[in-house]
């Protein structure tokens, strides 16, 4: 297991009876990067995260997080001191006030940064004397984030952190993630907000049906995915345009549209040889890459 990886799983599997929630997952999350963990609901993201944190036991396989093997209980407890985790449902002690919960949480962590907690309390405009249970969903999310950010973790794992936040809240969250990363924290977060992910992520992993479908630096995706629109006088057979990397070909009348994950140059060269009268190349937003990656193929 290499040191440059914050999370490294090999064959990680979780099954519930016949159902494979996570299926032989080989995940490699780089250190000192912001990695987005994407997938449709039910893809196995939360189950994976819970295994990484030692909250549930894998059925098979193993994982190392910050170099600690999750199968080893002592390693696992040392690991938990170095990770901050914000859960999807943000379970918090509802009977405490915001102020009490912050003070309560701070006692568990020797590295607690009181100044950071104070700064975020003001930035997030959290009502200190209100009971946690009476907070809005957005406020609870912000409080959970504050508790995580104030701990000076080596690794931040966030499950759907932007859920329940309005656009202003999401922007504040992104600035905070970026700021944490600049302080040397590795960030691993799941999200459905693809437009936001696209701005801040260095690396993207896409999960579907418990399996890893794509893992790449986002800059590689930006440079290699292309949509190419051709117009032909005499439309060739789509087969003549197929090169490795083509994800989708659609044609209608004189038009052919190709979505390719690489080799765009080669596709264009072939189309020119087939006398395409017009060639237009456009970049592919992450949303489209995502939808293409998790698309259900008929019969599967």
């Amino acid at each position: 297991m290499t040191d440059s990886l914050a999370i490294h799983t090999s064959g990680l599997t979780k099954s519930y009876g016949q159902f494979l929630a996570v299926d032989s997952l080989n995940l490699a999350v780089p250190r000192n990067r912001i990695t987005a963990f994407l997938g449709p609901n039910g893809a196995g993201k939360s189950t994976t995260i819970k295994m990484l944190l030692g909250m549930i036991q894998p059925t098979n396989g193993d994982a190392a997080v910050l170099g600690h093997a999750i199968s080893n209980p002592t390693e696992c407890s040392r690991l938990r001191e170095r990770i901050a985790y914000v859960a999807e449902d943000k379970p918090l002690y509802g009977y405490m006030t915001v102020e009490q919960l912050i003070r309560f949480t701070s006692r568990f962590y020797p590295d607690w940064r009181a100044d950071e907690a104070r700064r975020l309390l003001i930035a997030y405009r959290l009502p200190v004397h209100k009971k946690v249970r009476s907070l809005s969903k957005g406020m609870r999310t912000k409080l959970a984030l504050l508790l995580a950010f104030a701990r000076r973790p080596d690794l931040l794992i966030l499950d759907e952190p932007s859920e329940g936040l309005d656009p202003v809240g999401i922007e504040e969250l992104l600035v905070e993630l970026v700021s944490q990363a600049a302080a040397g924290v590795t960030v691993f977060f799941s999200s459905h907000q693809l437009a936001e992910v696209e701005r801040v992520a260095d690396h993207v992993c896409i999960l579907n049906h418990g399996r890893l479908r794509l893992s790449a630096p986002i800059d590689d995706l930006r440079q290699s995915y292309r949509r190419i629109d051709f117009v032909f006088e005499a439309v060739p057979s789509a087969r003549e345009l197929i090169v490795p990397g083509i994800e989708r070909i659609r044609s209608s009348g004189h038009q052919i549209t190709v979505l390719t994950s690489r080799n765009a140059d080669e596709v264009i060269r072939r189309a020119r040889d087939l006398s395409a009268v017009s060639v237009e190349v456009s970049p592919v937003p992450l949303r489209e890459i995502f939808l293409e990656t998790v698309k259900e193929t008929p019969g599967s």
Partner: protein
Amino acid sequence: MLFQKLNPELGQPLYLQLMQQIQHAAETGILRDGDQLPGIRTLAEELVVSPNTIVKAYTELEHCGVLELRQGLGAFVKTGRRTRSIADRVQLARRRFRNVIDNLRAENLRDDEIQRAFEAELLIAAEASRKK
């Protein structure tokens, strides 16, 4: 300098977009020799992009000789003779464009027509130089 937000949907890595902004600013005189650029964290927060984007842009610009990274101090602009001469040439080119635009307007062409024609010519020129 005032930074523009980077566009994640351009199909071009964000660090390249940032490099181009800084390079352009150095060539047009917005940034002068010795000017200090914002720190990694400050600029990452301002543009809301990963700090690694800033680090990569700064590092690449150091390789190109546009920036000097001083340990613990930050990034400083280094405009050599080449960037200065580019700045002068860009100024000259803009004056010539102004003349062309005035002439075309006098011939009753609209600004959007001028712009489309200019971009088409530029594209054709780019295509031609790629083929060479």
